[in-house]
């Protein structure tokens, strides 16, 4: 119990510190000024969400290979947390876009592929509610999860491969890209904070899935008795 409380406390402290750094330590950007500070939360959450979907993808592959229920539990846990992250990205993006571009939304490659990613993982969750038999549900959702992950590299590459309304990458964007050193430190600190939060939420969601399995076993015992 105390380990979970400590994990939660570390995640919250890091998130508060990341918000403080985003508001007060990072310097003002020269064109967008204070508005650019959304970047430290928006982009770091996107990275953490894509990591969660990466964990889901690996868990899905391992389930198909080994058919162990723990991989199914990890897959659904990481998918839900990744979906929460992408929901935050799809909300914070338009909040940034409206004052910066004058529009809330446009169907450019980055925004559209991110919206498709959100829809794909919503479908993953809906699919799981439609199949009663646990092994069949785990296998079909693992196969769908592997397919859904194809969109993650497309989201990553969209602003590199196509001309978009969304800004070009400032990290891993080639020789013309880059960030001020203090901005870079604040950004990577935010990425760390969001990854710790995501790890905590996946662990909590995994415990729920474990409880569901325990519940199913006891209910079967009760039916037999």
């Amino acid at each position, binding site marked *: 119990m105390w380990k979970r409380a400590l994990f939660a406390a570390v995640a919250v402290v890091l*998130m508060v510190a990341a*918000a403080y750094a*985003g*508001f007060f330590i990072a310097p003002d950007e020269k064109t*967008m*000024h*204070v*508005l650019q*500070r*959304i970047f430290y*939360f*928006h982009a770091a*959450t996107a990275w953490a969400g894509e990591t969660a979907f990466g964990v889901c993808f690996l868990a899905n592959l391992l389930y198909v290979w080994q058919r162990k229920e723990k991989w199914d539990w990890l897959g659904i846990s990481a998918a*839900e*947390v990744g979906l*929460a992250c992408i*929901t*935050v990205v799809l*909300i*914070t993006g338009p*909040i*940034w876009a*409206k*004052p910066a571009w004058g529009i809330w939304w446009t169907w450019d490659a980055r925004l559209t592929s991110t919206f498709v990613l959100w829809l794909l993982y919503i479908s993953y969750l809906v699919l799981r509610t439609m199949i009663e038999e646990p092994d069949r549900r785990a296998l079909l959702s693992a196969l769908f999860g592997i397919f859904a992950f194809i969109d993650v590299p497309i989201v990553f590459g969209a602003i590199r491969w196509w001309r978009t309304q969304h800004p070009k990458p400032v990290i891993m964007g080639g020789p013309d890209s880059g960030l001020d050193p203090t901005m870079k430190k604040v950004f990577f600190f935010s990425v760390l904070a969001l990854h710790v*939060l995501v790890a905590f*939420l996946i662990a*909590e*969601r995994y*415990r*729920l899935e474990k*409880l*569901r399995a*325990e*519940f199913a076993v*006891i*209910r079967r*015992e*009760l039916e037999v*008795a």
Partner: protein
Amino acid sequence: MNSLQSVFAAYVIGWAVFFVFYVSVAVRSSSLRQEIERLKSSLNKGK
């Protein structure tokens, strides 16, 4: 909405989404734990 309000709104709404997600997991876990305890006691009565 000025720029600072936009930044503040983005952080607050983002944090709220994570908080609601955490609470939904905690509530689901708590009700499941209660249900497991109830089933366990029915199982023990039956033995």
